[in-house]
């Protein structure tokens, strides 16, 4: 994966290659901001819009300074209507633009679902490839910030089930920077789920992606079992892995990254080695993406699996208020229990 691959404009717009040249320590918010800045600079057809993304720079400051730098035609506030924002994006894509709309919070993607599912995901298909939808929809996602209702949700299972969408979530600043540039260069619609609980932690962003951005990645190598996670749960799983190591348990952490399409090859390779897996996600259990991941693992590793794949997830309840958040989001204890279950499993 070279830089030019993802600096290419899907719509044939002139592309000036703009890219960080040396490692920088950035928060995810800064990494995303840098990526957006460079996307706007290198693809003259790129547009950033949504609620409060202009002057204010977004409620999480991810678009901070972009309007001042790139102008209010290319970075603009819309009225407060998510269906309108996504419908506008579809029309702009038809006109040859590369829209990067934002939905302010996960829970406010619902009013736009009709435009996302019935229009953006299908216009390439409906038009037999003549009207591509190179749209990257940024959605601050997942929980963990003690926010009001509808500000802490995980919609990946919904999006991953929609044919015509690709879905990705970065786990750290380096991933955020490279995956956003990769997504924005895609000729297909990508839902970009930003783990808002991780916006502020700093870490190095390298100039080179480091691996093939199209698939999953092993965030930590281990021998005894594989923890599969994405978004904010990757950091938590890495933390769990350190704790487990104290008990002599060697945990592999697989950062799935792409929630659609899922990288079944890396999954099979990892669990083929470790023979045990736990999937961790914040979304409710039932019909969550963990079921798909578990079934993909089981189908490919049926003979070698030593125990059923475990799921440690949010419960089948609405995302709760701050008081109960730490009870809802998989915490270290619950993940350790999941690990214990797969390690202690005995055939009956």
């Amino acid at each position, binding site marked *: 994966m070279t830089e030019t691959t993802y600096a290419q404009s*899907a719509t044939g717009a002139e592309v000036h290659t703009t890219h960080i040249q040396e490692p920088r320590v950035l928060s995810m918010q800064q990494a995303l901001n840098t990526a957006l800045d460079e996307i706007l600079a290198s693809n003259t057809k790129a*547009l950033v819009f949504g609620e409060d993304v202009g002057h204010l720079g977004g409620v999480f400051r991810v678009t901070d300074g972009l309007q001042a730098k790139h102008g209010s*035609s*290319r970075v603009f506030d*819309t*009225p407060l*209507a998510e*269906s*309108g924002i*996504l*419908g*506008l*994006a*579809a*029309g*702009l*894509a*038809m*006109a*040859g*633009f590369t829209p990067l709309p934002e939905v302010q919070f996960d829970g406010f993607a619902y009013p736009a679902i*009709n*435009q996302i599912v*019935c*229009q953006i995901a299908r*216009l*390439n*298909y*409906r*038009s*037999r*490839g*003549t*009207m*591509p939808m*190179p749209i990257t929809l940024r959605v601050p996602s997942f929980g963990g910030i003690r926010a009001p209702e509808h500000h802490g949700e995980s919609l990946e299972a919904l999006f991953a089930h929609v*044919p*015509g969408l*690709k879905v990705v979530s970065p786990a750290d600043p380096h991933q955020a920077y490279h995956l956003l540039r990769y997504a924005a260069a*895609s*000729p*297909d619609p990508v839902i970009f789920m930003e783990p808002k609980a991780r916006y502020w932690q700093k870490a190095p962003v390298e100039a080179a992606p480091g691996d093939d951005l199209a698939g999953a990645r092993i965030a930590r190598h281990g021998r005894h079992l594989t923890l599969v996670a994405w978004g904010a749960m990757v950091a938590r799983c890495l933390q769990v892995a350190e704790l487990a190591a104290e008990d002599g348990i060697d945990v592999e952490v697989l950062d799935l990254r792409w929630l659609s*399409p*899922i990288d*079944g*090859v890396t999954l099979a390779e990892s669990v083929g080695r470790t023979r045990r897996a736990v999937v961790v996600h914040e979304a409710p259990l039932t019909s969550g993406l963990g079921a798909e991941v578990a079934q993909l693992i089981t189908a490919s590793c049926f003979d070698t699996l030593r125990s059923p794949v475990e799921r440690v997830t949010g419960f089948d309840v609405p995302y709760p208020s701050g008081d109960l958040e730490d009870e809802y989001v998989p915490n270290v204890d619950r993940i350790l229990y999941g690990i214990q279950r797969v390690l202690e499993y005995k055939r009956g």
Partner: protein
Amino acid sequence: MEPLPAEELLGLYALMTEVRHLDRAAVAWQRQGIIPGYAPLLGQEAAQVGSGFAMDRTLDFAFPTYREMGVARALDVDMTGYMATHKASWHGGLYNPVTSRLAPIQAVVAGSVLHAVGWAHGQTLAGESGAALSYFGDGASSQGDVHEAMNFAAILRAPVVFFVQNNGWAISVPTEKQVAGGSVAARGAGYGIPGVTIDGNDIEAVVHTTRWALERARSGQGPVLIEALTYRRGPHSTADDPGRYRTLDEERESAGPDPMERLRDRILGAGIADMEALAGMEREAAAAVDQVRIKLTGLGTQPGAEMFNFVFQESTDSLNQQAEQWRKESDHD
């Protein structure tokens, strides 16, 4: 309002004649099992042909619903490709929407209204001067997306013309139970955009108003909302039975004079053409429709592999594997 030149009136009459023939034929084809379903536009020919005719095809772009066959014909879209949607070949139709200046056929009521606004705003951003023409119905006007579209369009001053065909019905629901206040056009004022009501069965009024609105939009003066009053003379679709919700007497009364007859009388009255010339147009229309029938029946079933081909610009391994498995399992007996 200047009368339209004679050759335009004749051109419009020829188009309307062909549209009416094709419309009637499609209903017959459905009965004959040639196509599984169809949504007739009978009675809406003036609104559709007139507005499509008013477009500048080098600049403008139209966004239809599922009933705009007359617009498609006026835009000179390949009618076999257009009708293929009703043959269940491909949802969006088999014509090329980009070169046809007609977005793919669209079944979600109000689904494409925002696309028109986005495309129109793209014209502004690109420094181009086309206008978008957004078609929708009285029923669709109830959808939230229409409100969002009008508000966005007015805020962005986007060059878009909202063309509402108020044909009196949304399947079985009459306008008075659908449109509070009774007028879609009246809603324009609430967004600070001109809302105009026209007789949608008077093709000259349709052409004039649409031209005016498109020019206004192209010249940077922002969106216009046109409500063309017309009447859906047929069923909602070939699956519908209007006898369940309106009587023939009611139909006759509400429909008013036939837009085709009005144009015919206008042409004959002004001595622009005689009956014989018009009869010639009928024959040409019949022949054209016959060609569509021949090509349409000649269209084979879409190959199953097409299911997989257009999902993405860049397909995925997972999808390719599914296509591969499908191929294996459907080759077998």
